[in-house]
C-alpha cells in the first residue's frame, strides 16, 4: 500500500511538413505609401502563432522593425493559396514563402533607396530600426518611409514581393516503400517522473525534463507555449482521454467534458525544457516546427516510468487506473525497478 515513484524516458524525431511534400504555400508582401508592410496569407492561425512567427520572419528578411509589419490571414480573396495549418508545416512552408516574398520586396526597396542616395545597391544595409544607410557611413541614410514615398510617387516602383515554397512531391515505391517523406526532422528526448498509487492504480505526474531540437527557435516564448501545452496534451493522451474507453467496443463514449477526462490545472507538474538548434538547410533561418512533436514523447515516457515504479508494462492507451491496478494484481503486487 504505497505511492511509488519511477522515471522513464523516450526519444524520437518528427517529420516537418506534409508527408512526401507536394504541399505548397504562397505569400504576398507589400508596402503601403509610408513604408509599413502587410503580409497577405490565407494561412490559418490556430493559436500556434502563425501570424506572429511569419511577422518576425518578414521583419528580419526585410530588415525593418517588427512593428512595421502586419500579417493578414485567412481570406481567400486576398491571401494566396496555402495548403493549410497542419503537419507541422506552418513555420517551414509558410515561413519560407514569406521569406521569398519579403526578399523580393526588400530587393525593390533597396534599389529604390540606392537611387535616392545615388549609390550602388551593394553598398547599402538596413539597420532593423527603419533606416537604410551606406555600410560604414550611417549618416548617409534614408528612412524606409521616405524610400516608400519616393518609390511610389517618383520612381514608379512597387515595393512588393511574391513567394511560394514547395517541396516537390515524392513518389512511393509500392514494393519497397522507398520515398522522400520530409526534408528535415525535429528531435526530442523526454524524461518523465511519475508516482503510482498501487492501491488505486492512479498515476500522478511528478516532473518532466526534456530536450527538443527545433532547427531554430524563431521566438522562444512561442516555442515554450507549444512545448508546454503539447506536453500537457501528451499527459492527457497517456493517462486520461479517449472517446472509446472500451475500444474496440464502441459503447460508453463520453458526451461532454464531464465524461471526457483531461488533466486540470491541479494535475500538471513542473517541466524543464532545453531547446537545441541545428538549422535545417531549407528552413526559414533554419527553423523546423514543434507543433506536433511536443505531445508525442510524453506517452511512452510515462509508460516506461510506470514500469520503473511498479514493474508493469502498459501497452495500451490510455493508461487508466483500472488498467494499472489490474496489471499490478496480475503480477502479484508492485515490483519497483532500480531507480534511474
Amino acid at each position, binding site marked *: 500500500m504505497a505511492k511509488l515513484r519511477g522515471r522513464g524516458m523516450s526519444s524520437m524525431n518528427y517529420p516537418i511538413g506534409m508527408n*512526401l511534400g507536394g504541399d505548397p504555400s504562397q505569400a504576398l508582401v507589400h508596402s503601403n505609401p509610408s513604408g509599413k508592410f502587410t503580409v497577405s496569407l490565407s494561412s490559418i492561425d490556430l493559436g500556434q502563432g502563425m501570424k506572429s512567427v511569419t511577422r518576425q520572419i518578414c521583419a528580419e528578411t526585410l530588415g525593418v522593425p517588427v512593428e512595421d509589419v502586419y500579417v493578414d490571414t485567412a481570406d481567400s480573396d486576398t491571401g494566396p493559396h496555402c495548403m493549410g495549418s497542419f503537419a507541422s508545416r506552418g513555420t517551414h512552408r509558410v515561413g519560407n514563402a514569406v521569406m521569398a516574398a519579403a526578399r523580393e520586396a526588400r530587393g525593390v526597396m533597396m534599389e529604390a533607396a540606392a537611387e535616392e542616395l545615388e549609390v550602388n545597391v551593394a553598398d547599402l544595409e538596413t539597420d532593423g530600426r527603419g533606416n537604410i544607410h551606406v555600410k560604414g557611413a550611417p549618416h548617409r541614410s534614408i528612412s524606409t518611409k521616405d524610400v516608400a514615398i519616393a518609390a511610389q510617387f517618383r520612381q514608379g516602383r512597387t515595393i512588393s514581393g511574391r513567394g511560394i515554397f514547395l517541396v516537390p512531391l515524392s513518389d512511393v515505391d509500392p514494393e519497397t516503400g522507398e520515398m522522400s517523406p520530409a526534408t528535415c526532422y525535429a528531435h526530442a528526448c523526454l524524461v518523465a517522473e511519475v508516482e503510482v498509487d498501487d492501491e488505486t492504480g492512479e498515476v500522478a505526474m511528478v516532473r518532466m525534463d526534456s*530536450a527538443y531540437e527545433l532547427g531554430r527557435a524563431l521566438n522562444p516564448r512561442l516555442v515554450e507555449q507549444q512545448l508546454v501545452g503539447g506536453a500537457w496534451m501528451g499527459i492527457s493522451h497517456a493517462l486520461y482521454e479517449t472517446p472509446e474507453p472500451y475500444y474496440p467496443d464502441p459503447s460508453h463514449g463520453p458526451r461532454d467534458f464531464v465524461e471526457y477526462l483531461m488533466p486540470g490545472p491541479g494535475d500538471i507538474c513542473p517541466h524543464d525544457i532545453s531547446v537545441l538548434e541545428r538549422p535545417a538547410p531549407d528552413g526559414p533561418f533554419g527553423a523546423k516546427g514543434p507543433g506536433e512533436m511536443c505531445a508525442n514523447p510524453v506517452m511512452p515516457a510515462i509508460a516506461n516510468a510506470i514500469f520503473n515504479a511498479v514493474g508493469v508494462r502498459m501497452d495500451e492507451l490510455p493508461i487508466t487506473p483500472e488498467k494499472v491496478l489490474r496489471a499490478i494484481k496480475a503480477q502479484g503486487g508492485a515490483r519497483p525497478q532500480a531507480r534511474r
Partner: protein
Amino acid sequence: MLELRKDIFADERDDNLKEIGKPTQRQDMLGHVTATSVYFNDHKLQGMLHLKVLRSPHSHARIRRIDLSEAERSPGVRRIIRGADVPRNLNTLLSLINFGKDDEPTLAVDKVRYKGEPIVAVVAESQREAFEALAKIRVDYEPLPTVFDVEEAMKPGAPVINETYPKNTFTYHDIYDHQKIRFGDVERGFAAADHILEQRYQMSPIEHAPTETNGSIAAPDTNGRYVVYTSTQALFFSLDTCAKILDVPSNKLHFIGGTVGGGFGGKVDTVTEPLAILGAMLTGRPVRYMIGREEEMLYCAPRGAERIFIKDGVSRDGRILARQFRCLFDSGAYTRLSSYAVVKCAAHLPGPYTIPNVYAEVYCVFTNRVPATAMRGFGVTAVDFAIECQMDKLADLVGMDPMEFRLVNAYRDGDMKAHRREAKNTALIECVQVAAEKAKWRIRDDFKRMSSLKDVGAPRAVVPAPAPAREAILVSRPAGQQRTVYDRPAPPSPEPIRPPPPPPPAQPAAAPSHGAIRFSSVFGGRRR
C-alpha cells in the same frame, strides 16, 4: 522553464539576427485578452437560419425509407436537405490531390455505415426549431451486421462496410492492401539476434476536444457569390472541397477563416461548410451549421485507433539487427485522411534508429465507427508510443540503461534510412545527452562523447541486400498471449556463447539506391 542551448551546433548557425530569436509579443495576444479576436461564430448576420442534421442511430444499416412529411410542416422549418439535393454527394477529401476514390456521402442515401452518420439536414429559424423538426423525421432502417475490430474487419467473410473498398482495406498503388517497407532481410537479422521480442500495442481513438467546436456560417454575398465564415484549419482545402461537392466554380466562394479556437487536426475535414453553403443556396439566407459538443464528442472524427505489432531482433550488445512492423489503422467507416496517415507512418519506421533490416506492412482498415481524421502527430504518435515502449523493453532484456540503448542505435548523419534516403541534419544523440544531463540520469562517458556527426559511413550508410520474397506476416496472435513473449526468458543457446556477429560486409561505395524496380506514385497524378 525553457533554456536555449546555444552552445550545441553553434558552428552551424549564424545567430547574428535582429528580430528572429526575440521573445516578441504575439500579434493576436491583445485581441485574445480583450476578447476581440474573431472566431467564425462572432458574426451576427441578419436573418440567419440554423442547420442541424439527423444522425443515424445505427452503426450499420440500410435506409429503406425517409419520411419528411411531418418535419416539413414543423414550425420554423425553411428547408430540408437530402442526399439527392447535394450536387456531388460522394467525395473523399484527398481527391483534391488525386489520392483515393470518392467513398463518403455528405448525406447518406441508401446506407449508413457509422452511428452518427448524417442523413438529412434541417434548416430552421432557430436551433430549437431545427431540433424539434429532426425529432419528427421518420426513417426506416434495416440494421446490418457490424464490425468494430480491425482484425475482424480484415477477415474474409467480414461484413462489407464501404463498398468502394470491399475487403475493408484501402488500396495502395492499385494492387496492395497495405503500404510496404522492405529494407534488407529481417529473417536473416532475427536469425543472427540473441533476443527476439514480439509485442502488441494499442492506442484508442482520441477526440480533439477543442474548446471551440467545428462550425461555419454561409451567406449569399453580393454579386452571386457566397461568403463563408469557417473554423477550418485549411482555407483553400475546404473551399475546393466545397466547390467540388456543390459543383460550383471555386471563385464563387469567398472563405474567411477566423482565429480557430483550437484545431489539432480536427478542423480539416470540412464537415459543416458544404451543407451550410447548400443551405444558403437553397434558402437565399445566411445559414449557420455549428456542431454541438455532444455531437463533436460522439460523431465528429477522432484520431483513429492504431494497433501495432513490433518484432525485434537484438544482439546482446544492444544493437537492434532487425525490426518488423504490422500496423493497423482504424479508419472508421470512410477514408478521409487515414490513407495518407498510413504512408506517413510507413515513412517514419523504424524510428530514428539505424537498423539494417526493416520490414513493415501498414494497413488502413475500415470499421463501423466514426471516420477517423488527422490529429496532432498524425501517423506517428501511436507508432512512436509503440517503438519507445519497445525500446525500453529491449534495453531491459539486454540489461542496458535505456538512454544508452537509444544512443547505441540512434541514427547519425549519413546513415541509410529504411525508406532509402540518407539521414541528414540529425540530432537525436544530442537530445538524449542533454535530457540525461538535465534529469541527472547518469550515462557513461563513452555515451556522453557520442555525436550525430561521428562514427558514420559504411556499413550504416548503404542499402543492404534485399530479402528473398515471402508471404505477408500471418494474422497476429490473440491478445492473451502478448505478455508471454516478453516474460519468457531467452531460450538456452545450444552452443557456448559466441562473439557478436560481424557487421554485414560493406557494399561497394555507391550512391544510395534510387533505382527500385518499379516506381509508381501513391497519388494518381498531379493536382488539377
